[in-house]
C-alpha cells in the first residue's frame, strides 16, 4: 500500500514538473515579459536593467528552477492586464468556481444515480426510454447551448430564476465568499449548476445503468432472489452497493473536468469565477494568469487522481492483493 502510494506520488510529481515546464516556456518564450511590463517610451538601457533585475539573463535552467520554487509558494508574478499579483486574483475567484463545481457534482450524483438505477431495473418502460433519450441529448449538445436554452426558457420566458452573476454573497472570512447562505445566491446557482452538471449526470446515469444490468445477471443476485429477499433489499442492498465503486471513481475523476468545464458555464452565466478570469486572460494574452491557471488545474487533477487511486485500493481488496503480489 505504502509502496503503491509512493510510486503514484512520484508519477504525480513527474506530471507536475512537465506541466510546470510547459507553463514556464509559455511564460518565458511566448512574447517578451519585459515588453508587457513597460511603456513604449522606456529606453533600451532601462529595459536591460529591468531584464537583469528580473533575472531574465540567467541560464534558462536556473530560471526554470526559480519558477518552480516560486510556483510552489503560489507566486505566479503580476498579471499583465490587471497589474495585480496573479495569486490574489485567482484566490478571490476560487470560491465561486469551487462552489459551482461542487453543487454541480452533487446535482449530477443526486439525479444521475436514481435515474441510472431506474433505467437499469425497468429497461423497457417508456420513462426509461425517455431518460435515455434525454441522456443522449445531454451528451451531444454543447454545454454553452444548454446554458443558453435554459436562460431562454427559464429566465427570459418564465422569469423564474436569475440568468447571470452570483446574487448576494456572504463573506465567511479570509476572503472566502459564499452564495449558499442567501436566497438570491441559491437562486443564481440553480441554472449554472444544471448546465455544468448535465453532462456528468448523463455519464453517471449510463454508468449506473450499465453496472446495474451487469450485476443483476450475476449468481449472487440470483441466490439472493432464491433466498426470498425483498426486491428493495436486492436492488439497493446488494446490486446498487456493488455498482458504487466505479461510480465513485468516475465522479471523482470527473470533478476535475467539471472545474475545467466551468470556463464555458461561467462565460454563459457571467459567473465571477476562475474560468472567466482564465478566458479573459486567453483573449488578452495575459500569460501569467494562463500559466498559473494551467498549473492550478494540473495540480487539482493530479491530487484528485491520486486520491481516487488510493480510494480504489482501499475499497477494492482485489487490487490491494494484486498490487502486493506484484
Amino acid at each position, binding site marked *: 500500500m505504502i509502496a503503491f502510494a509512493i510510486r503514484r506520488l512520484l508519477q504525480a510529481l513527474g*506530471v507536475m514538473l*512537465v*506541466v510546470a515546464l510547459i507553463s514556464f516556456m*509559455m511564460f518565458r518564450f*511566448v*512574447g517578451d515579459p519585459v515588453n508587457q511590463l513597460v511603456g513604449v517610451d522606456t529606453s533600451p538601457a532601462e529595459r536591460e536593467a529591468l531584464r537583469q533585475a528580473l533575472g531574465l539573463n540567467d541560464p534558462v535552467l536556473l530560471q526554470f528552477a526559480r519558477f518552480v520554487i516560486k510556483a510552489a509558494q503560489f507566486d505566479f508574478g503580476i498579471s499583465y492586464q490587471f497589474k495585480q499579483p496573479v495569486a490574489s486574483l485567482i484566490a478571490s475567484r476560487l470560491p465561486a468556481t469551487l462552489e459551482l463545481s461542487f453543487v454541480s457534482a452533487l446535482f449530477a450524483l443526486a439525479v444521475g444515480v436514481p435515474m441510472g438505477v431506474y433505467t437499469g431495473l425497468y429497461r423497457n418502460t417508456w420513462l426509461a426510454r425517455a431518460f435515455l433519450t434525454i441522456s*443522449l*441529448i445531454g*451528451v*451531444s*449538445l*454543447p*454545454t*454553452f*447551448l444548454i446554458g*443558453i*436554452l435554459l*436562460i*431562454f426558457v427559464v429566465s*427570459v420566458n418564465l422569469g423564474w430564476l436569475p*440568468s447571470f452573476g452570483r446574487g448576494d454573497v456572504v463573506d465567511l472570512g479570509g476572503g472566502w465568499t459564499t452564495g449558499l447562505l442567501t436566497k438570491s445566491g441559491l437562486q443564481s446557482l440553480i441554472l449554472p449548476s444544471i448546465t455544468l452538471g448535465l453532462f456528468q449526470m448523463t455519464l453517471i446515469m449510463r454508468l449506473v445503468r450499465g453496472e446495474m444490468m451487469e450485476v443483476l445477471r450475476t449468481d449472487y443476485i440470483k441466490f439472493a432472489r432464491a433466498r426470498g429477499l425483498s426486491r428493495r433489499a436486492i436492488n439497493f442492498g446488494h446490486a446498487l452497493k456493488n455498482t458504487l465503486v466505479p461510480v465513485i471513481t468516475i465522479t471523482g475523476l470527473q470533478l476535475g*473536468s467539471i472545474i*475545467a*468545464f466551468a*470556463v*464555458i458555464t461561467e*462565460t*454563459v452565466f457571467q459567473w465571477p469565477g476562475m474560468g472567466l478570469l*482564465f*478566458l479573459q*486572460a*486567453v*483573449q488578452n*494574452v495575459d*500569460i501569467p494568469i*494562463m500559466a498559473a491557471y*494551467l498549473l492550478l*488545474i*494540473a495540480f487539482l*487533477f*493530479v491530487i484528485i*487522481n491520486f486520491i481516487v487511486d488510493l480510494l480504489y485500493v482501499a475499497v477494492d481488496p482485489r487490487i490491494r492483493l494484486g498490487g502486493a503480489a506484484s
Partner: protein
Amino acid sequence: MSYATEPEGKAAQTAPEGVKGGTRPGFVRRIADSDIWYSFTRSPLTMVSAVVTAIFMLAALFAPLIAPHNPFDPASISIMDSFYPPIWEADSDPRFLLGSDDQGRDVLSTILYGMRISLAVGFASVIFAMVIGVTLGLLAGYLGGWVDSVIMRIADVQLTFPAILIALLINGVARAMAGPQSYDNVVFAVLVLSIGLSFWVQYARTVRGSVLVEANKEYVLAAKLIGLKPITIMFKHVLPNVLGPVLVIATINLALAIITEATLSFLGVGVPPTEPSLGTLIRIGNDFLFSGEWWVTIFPGITLAILALAVNLLGDWLRDALNPKLR
C-alpha cells in the same frame, strides 16, 4: 463523407470472406451486400441521422446557391432591415424567412454560410488530428523503445486534461505568438491547430495498439526480409491494416470538433464576427436574447444541436456496426 464510407464498406465485405482478386462484384453490389449496409437499413434512427447529416452538408456546400441573401456582401445588407422577426410573427418581412439580425443580415443565410465554416473547420481539424495521431501512433508502435516512451508519455499527460482546455491554451499561445494585428489572418489555422492538437491522442493510442499486433505478422516479417525501409513498411503495409478503427474515431470526432469550434467561437476566441461560424452567430445573438430578439441566437443554436446530434448518432452506430464483439 464519401471517402469515409468506401474503405469501410470494402473492409467489412472482404475481411470476413477473404476475397482475393478474381471476379470482384461492382462497388454498388458490394456495398449492398455488406453487413454494414444491412445494419444500416435495420436502424431507422441511423437512417434519419444519415439523411439529416447529408442534407446539412449539401446545404453548407451549396450555400451560395441556396441562400436567399449573401450575408458577406456589404452592398446587399442594410441596417434598416435589422431585427425583423421570423415570418410567422407579427411585423415580419417576407424577405427574411427566419428573421434578420442586428446588422440586417438574413438569419437563414448566415446560418447556411456559418454551417459551411463550422463544417470546414471541423473536417480540417479532424484530418489534422488524424494525420498527426496516426503518424505518431505508427512511429510509437513500430519503432518502440524511447520513441514509444516519449510519445506515449506526452499522450498520457495530455489525456489528463479535457480537450477544450488544451484547445483554449494552444489558442492563447498562438494568439500571443501571432500578435494582435496579424491574428485575424491566421485565425482558421490557429483553430484547426488547437482543435487538432487536442484530439490526436485517441488516434495515436488506437493505432499504436493495432500496430503492436500487426508488427509480428508474417507479411511484415516478409517485407523486412526483402529489405524494405521501415518508412515504406509502416506507411504502405501496416497503415492500411490499422485504418478501420481510425475511421470510426474520426466520425465521432467530427461531432466533437464541430462542438469544440462552436464553443471556442462562442467564448470569443474562435472565428471573428465578420465571417461567422455557428458558434459566432450564437455568441452575437446571445446579446439580444433579453431584448426579445430570440431568433438571432436560437435558430443557429438549434441548427448546431441537430447537426451535432446527427453526426454523433452516426458515429455511435458506426462504432457498434464495425465492432465484431457486438454482432
